[in-house]
């Protein structure tokens, strides 16, 4: 359920009934334990965070510090917090928690010492928390003060509070750059965007010790929830865009491609061009652009050929321009791109089209659009694509989808599928987990839903642990072919118990389905396991709403089913090497490095 149709006031006012409704959603919940360490009151922050996380499919249990005890909780190992075992720690501090600001008469050296002291107060806490809890930490930076003794010079002179907080914020950002499991919640931007005067309304501080105005809390909570859902791989991945009155002004079929409003000639045309620029920028973070438009295809393409467009036909991976219902087009498009319909952000100026998508895909993202000059606000505010890590794969994703489209075209020219696979000239690199891939591997365990036998979600620390302990066998698989490199696409982790191996994790990205990669992984798994004197391999399948495609996976790999319970969980075994029958592969494994 998308909360973007509710105002912040409504979210606060109807918290209790919305919470009930969200809990009743049918979805595959992700359960997480979140500790909020507050430097001020956090009650309503916890409530709003809970709503947003529920709307993202994350069911959270919370720990809240006693009032203002964030630092004590972190530094002195509060037993309640230790027992709670947080998956995420959110430190909610604000400029109300600055211990001492500079005075106007202070020397440069004094101010610098204050700055270092304040920074040390926080960084010591982060270091302690990361040692004690090994989990992601989310830390607010600072909002500007709501009054300025020095006026504009507050931002110029070292003694100014604005200058002091600006320096601290930079130091926090540098820490975040250097620590992959540490995330900054940009209070400074959020408060500026909201309006600092309203954000800092002292009424709420003096009345209830809230460091921000109550009506601003939903915005803060959404920002934190966005970081969390991004860490757990729940970002959206693609846009599905309408054309007429969405990407340009006017109706191309009626007005003709030369008369649509797009480009620098008119104000309206400029406005749509800016919106197209905004969309195009998303390609840089791996978001793919697609079109679903009720139009004759030739009209749609003619509209896109208008030279005023920033977006060109080749910017889109899939274009559905026809008269079919949009929910069906979205379903088809998603399956062709090996994505889920819920992974799309659906942009359409027509409320009726938004409604049909909302009805068909309750977990989808369908921003409410008002006037075209505010499209960017409406989309950007929601943080659909919140960036918490930028892997090389993210940067190259658009290219990968393009290559996939080329593969599909090539496939059409072969009658024998194996001949087609051979023509791809596939090469795989399959090895035990390497540090350079920990981030990508963790990301895959959190993102892959369909080709995933156990849906075991892992943090980067856990991946590192599996890689370093010799009681585990780990394998990642990279696949490349003549059209390009798919990057890391498959992951296996098994736990050794004597001569038995229990496969706790086996997943593969759907973009390499039907290429034989799962058999190449199996071949390497058996080879590695035999070297370690394993004689029996146990496979497990735990059904979820999304992984039916791998229900019979172990049977296909030659395993024998041993058990099945009422929920459909199954256990399989294979004796190696005796029962293992290698399959014909069109993939060369670990070629150049051996």
């Amino acid at each position: 359920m998308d909360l973007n149709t509710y105002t912040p006031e409504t979210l606060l006012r109807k918290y209790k009934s919305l919470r009930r409704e969200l809990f009743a959603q049918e979805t595959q919940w992700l359960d997480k334990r979140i500790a909020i360490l507050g430097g001020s009151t956090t009650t309503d922050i916890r409530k709003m965070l809970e709503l947003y996380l529920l709307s993202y499919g994350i069911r959270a249990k919370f720990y809240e510090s006693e009032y203002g005890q964030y630092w004590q909780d972190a530094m002195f190992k509060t037993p309640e917090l230790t027992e709670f075992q947080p998956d995420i720690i959110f430190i909610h501090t604000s400029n109300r928690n600055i211990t001492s600001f500079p005075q106007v008469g202070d020397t440069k050296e004094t101010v610098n010492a204050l700055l270092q002291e304040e920074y040390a107060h926080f960084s010591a806490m982060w270091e302690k928390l990361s040692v004690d809890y090994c989990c992601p930490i989310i830390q607010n930076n600072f909002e500007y003060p709501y009054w300025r003794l020095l006026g504009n010079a507050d931002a110029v002179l070292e003694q100014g509070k604005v200058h002091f907080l600006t320096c601290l914020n930079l130091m926090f950002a540098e820490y975040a750059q250097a620590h992959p499991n540490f995330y900054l919640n940009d209070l400074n931007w959020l408060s500026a965007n909201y309006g600092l005067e309203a954000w800092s309304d002292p009424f709420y501080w003096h009345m209830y010790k809230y460091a921000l105005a109550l009506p601003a809390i939903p915005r803060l909570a959404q920002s934190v929830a966005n970081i969390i859902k991004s860490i757990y791989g729940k970002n959206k991945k693609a846009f599905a865009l309408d054309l007429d009155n969405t990407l340009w002004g006017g109706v191309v079929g009626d007005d003709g491609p030369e008369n649509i409003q797009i480009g620098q000639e008119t104000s309206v045309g400029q406005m749509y061009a800016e919106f197209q620029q905004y969309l195009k920028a998303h390609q840089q973070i791996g978001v793919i652009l697609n079109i679903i438009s009720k139009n004759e295809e030739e009209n749609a393409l003619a509209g896109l050929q208008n030279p005023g467009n920033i977006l060109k036909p080749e910017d889109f991976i899939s274009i559905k321009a026809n008269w079919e219902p949009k929910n069906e087009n979205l379903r088809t498009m998603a399956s062709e791109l090996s994505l889920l319909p819920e992974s799309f952000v659906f942009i359409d100026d027509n409320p009726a089209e938004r409604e049909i998508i909302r009805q068909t895909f309750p977990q989808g993202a369908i921003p409410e659009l008002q006037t075209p000059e505010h499209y960017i606000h409406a989309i950007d505010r929601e943080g659909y694509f919140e960036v918490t890590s930028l892997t090389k794969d993210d940067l190259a994703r658009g290219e990968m989808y393009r290559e996939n489209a080329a593969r599909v075209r090539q496939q059409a020219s072969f009658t024998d599928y194996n001949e087609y696979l051979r023509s791809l000239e596939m090469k795989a690199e399959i090895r035990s987990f390497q540090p350079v891939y920990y981030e990508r591997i963790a990301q895959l365990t959190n993102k892959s839903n369909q080709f995933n036998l156990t849906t075991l979600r892992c943090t980067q620390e856990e991946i590192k642990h599996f890689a370093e302990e010799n009681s585990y066998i780990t394998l990642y698989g990279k696949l490349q072919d003549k059209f390009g490199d798919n990057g890391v696409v498959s992951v296996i982790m098994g736990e050794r118990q004597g001569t038995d191996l229990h496969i706790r994790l086996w997943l593969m990205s759907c973009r390499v389905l039907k290429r034989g990669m799962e058999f190449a992984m199996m071949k390497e798994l058996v080879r590695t396991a035999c070297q370690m004197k394993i004689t029996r391999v146990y496979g497990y399948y735990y059904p979820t709403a999304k992984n039916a495609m791998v229900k019979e996976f172990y049977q296909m790999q030659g395993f024998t089913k041993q058990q099945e319970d009422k929920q459909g969980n199954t256990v399989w075994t294979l004796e190696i090497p005796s029962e293992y029958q290698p399959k014909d592969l069109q993939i060369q494994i670990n070629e150049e490095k051996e």
Partner: protein
Amino acid sequence: MIKNEIYERLNKVFQDVFDDESIVVNENTTSADIEEWDSLEHINLVVAVESEFGMKFTLGETTSMKNVGEMVTIIANRATK
């Protein structure tokens, strides 16, 4: 604004905030009459009333209001919607 109308809209606000459709307030209602009306819910109530009627309470008023009747008097003087 007519006080009856204020009470009608105010009931809806109370019902939403305390998630209880049976709540009906009158001028003598105080926090003692509604079980969940503690100091933390008080702020949600105040903000919900402010946004319902397009007005603000001062800090002084918020700490000194003794019952719903006093709240309604302030709303009647200041409501913009």
